[in-house]
């Protein structure tokens, strides 16, 4: 593919309000002028998305069909509520384990009040998003069982670029634990914009995982707003995609928030996984922690860009960030940019980043106990990722995550 530009007819042919049309047209114009991001942009320093897309796609279309799906396959590993999305469109939902009056679930909501962005993928999303869901949990409600968000993509999305917009709002004193579970069989681009709001004293645990290895090229921009004493935990186990970038921005806007983002990834073949976090400490006394662990095989590439920003009034901030990579092949690559930008003095902020191969002394120790080199490496790899997996508190979900990780490791 050489040039990718979308003409305005795609929007102007739709029967929509003037406001919507203006919003979409404005954003399309921005996208067309910026194009897909490339290495010249600081946020894409290690990843030339434009080049990746042009190399791997001959054509791309923004129009997406949503086929009828009659039967859905659910996970049997643990009891759960679910919402089922087909190509980003809300298909069914089931909250049989919960008080239904406390939960509002809707299809994509038409909101066109987003500020202008310089991120061309967000512009593209604003211009074309039609699918997605909006979930709101009422005050004082704690989920009894986990919620699985089935993200199912059919073969109809082949060579498409999907633009999906999701919204999640957890009101005061409420709690939810969700697992976003992606099942995909197509080669396509998924461009998601997700907005999460945690109100006072609320808690969200989110976990991202893929069912299978696939040809998906995913970008997700996640905008989180944390209010007083709220608690956010993001666990990213999404190995298996051809390309994945999780771009997470967390605003800690009131006191006493907690924000933890952890990831354990095993990458193989020519998979490319990037995690970018930006934690904005905007109020005093908040805690944030990021721990990104990547095991890189074959020609895979792992990138971590993490920034901790501390505003001058955000005293007593406690922020720690670490990234570790294990390179198992001479063609693998790990790039990182752990960044601190700090304007308050009474803070504890630090980061660490290491990359290297498996420790030979550890291997030797294991081998003196009769393990062959491959088994010893596997054991060390699992051990390396273990401290992130530990954060999954539910034993049935942990077992599920472990089995998925083991599948990946054994496939290698």
């Amino acid at each position, binding site marked *: 593919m050489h040039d990718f530009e979308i003409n305005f007819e795609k929007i102007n042919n739709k029967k929509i309000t003037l406001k919507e049309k203006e919003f979409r047209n404005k954003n399309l114009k921005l996208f067309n002028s910026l194009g897909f991001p490339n290495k010249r942009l600081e946020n894409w320093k290690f990843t030339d998305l434009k080049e990746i897309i042009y190399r791997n796609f001959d054509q791309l279309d923004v129009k997406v069909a949503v086929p009828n799906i009659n039967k859905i396959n659910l996970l049997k590993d643990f009891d759960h509520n679910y919402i089922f999305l087909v190509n980003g469109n809300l298909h069914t939902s089931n909250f049989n384990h919960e008080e239904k009056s406390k939960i509002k679930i809707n299809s994509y909501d038409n909101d066109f009040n987003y500020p202008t962005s310089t991120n061309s993928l967000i512009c593209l999303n604003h211009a074309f998003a039609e699918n997605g869901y909006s979930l709101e949990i009422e005050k004082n409600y704690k989920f009894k069982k986990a919620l699985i968000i089935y993200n199912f993509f059919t073969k109809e999305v082949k060579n498409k670029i999907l633009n999906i917009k999701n919204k999640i709002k957890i009101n005061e004193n409420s709690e939810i634990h969700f697992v976003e579970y992606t099942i995909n069989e197509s080669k396509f681009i998924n461009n998601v914009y997700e907005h999460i709001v945690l109100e006072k004293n609320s808690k969200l645990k989110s976990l991202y995982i893929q069912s299978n290895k696939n040809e998906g090229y995913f970008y997700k921009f996640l905008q989180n707003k944390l209010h007083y004493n709220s608690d956010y935990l993001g666990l990213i186990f999404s190995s298996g995609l051809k390309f994945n970038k999780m771009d997470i921005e967390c605003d800690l806007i009131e006191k006493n928030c907690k924000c933890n983002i952890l990831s354990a990834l095993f990458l193989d073949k020519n998979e490319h996984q990037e995690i970018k976090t930006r934690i904005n400490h905007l109020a005093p006394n908040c805690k944030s922690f990021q721990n990104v662990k990547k095991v890189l095989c074959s020609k895979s590439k792992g990138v971590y860009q993490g920034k901790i920003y501390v505003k001058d009034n955000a005293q007593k901030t406690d922020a720690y960030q670490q990234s570790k990579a294990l390179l198992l092949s001479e063609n693998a690559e790990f790039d990182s940019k752990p960044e601190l930008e700090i304007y308050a003095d009474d803070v504890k902020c630090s980061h660490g980043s290491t990359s290297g191969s498996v420790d030979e002394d550890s291997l030797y120790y294991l081998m003196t106990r009769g*393990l062959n080199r491959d088994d010893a490496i596997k054991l*060390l790899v699992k051990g390396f990722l273990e401290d992130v997996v530990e954060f999954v508190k539910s034993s049935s979900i942990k077992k599920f995550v472990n089995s998925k990780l083991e599948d990946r490791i054994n496939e290698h």
Partner: protein
Amino acid sequence: MLEIKNLQVSINNKQIIKGLNLTIKPGELHAVMGPNGSGKSTLANVLSGKNGYEISGELNFNGKSLKKIPTEKRAQRGIFLAFQYPLEIPGVNTNNFLKTSLNSIRKAKGEKEIDSLSFLKLVKEKTSELGIDEKILSRQLNVGFSGGEKKKNEILQMKILDPNLSILDETDSGLDIDALRIIAKGVNSSRNKKKSFLVITHYQRLLDYIKPDFVHVLSDGKIVKTGCSELAEEVEKTGYKKLN
């Protein structure tokens, strides 16, 4: 069982072992004593097949040369090394590790893999036999273990893996008397006609609890004196210098 003839070992062009001869028969327990830097740990590492050494001379185990056999194959044939400084391996669960290890060895012997239940039973039996708290096995491998716990863990592994030749590399150093007793108990209860031991130590102390059949004094890469257990006492009294 083990036959070492004119062993010469160097690392980074520096010769550490300079023509060492040693034969250990089944059922025998040999102690190697020697001052710091005499090559004791090098001997242990070479026997277990650690990389990075240049080796000449003969090194036979049960009649076959060990020289080209990788570390894990030696372990599978029944050579066990209790490390002087057991490594901490974060994230790796001790129980899980031991089971994988035991099964690798069983598989190599052509035995069936052990199931989880029998493994737990075996662990229970061995921990109580040694008087070790079972809990250390549910922790990460040696992570945050005290020096004594690490050494006890080594002996527990030895008991579970049931090797033919056990090499104890200064297992007694830095231990209090209670831990020392546990180590000695572990060794003594394993001794029989088929099992052999090579106990490397700096002090005679451990040999009060474990009676060696032979004591060798290693100095500057060579065995300078061999005797029975009384030699250890002599060394303790007169020091190493006198023997040279």
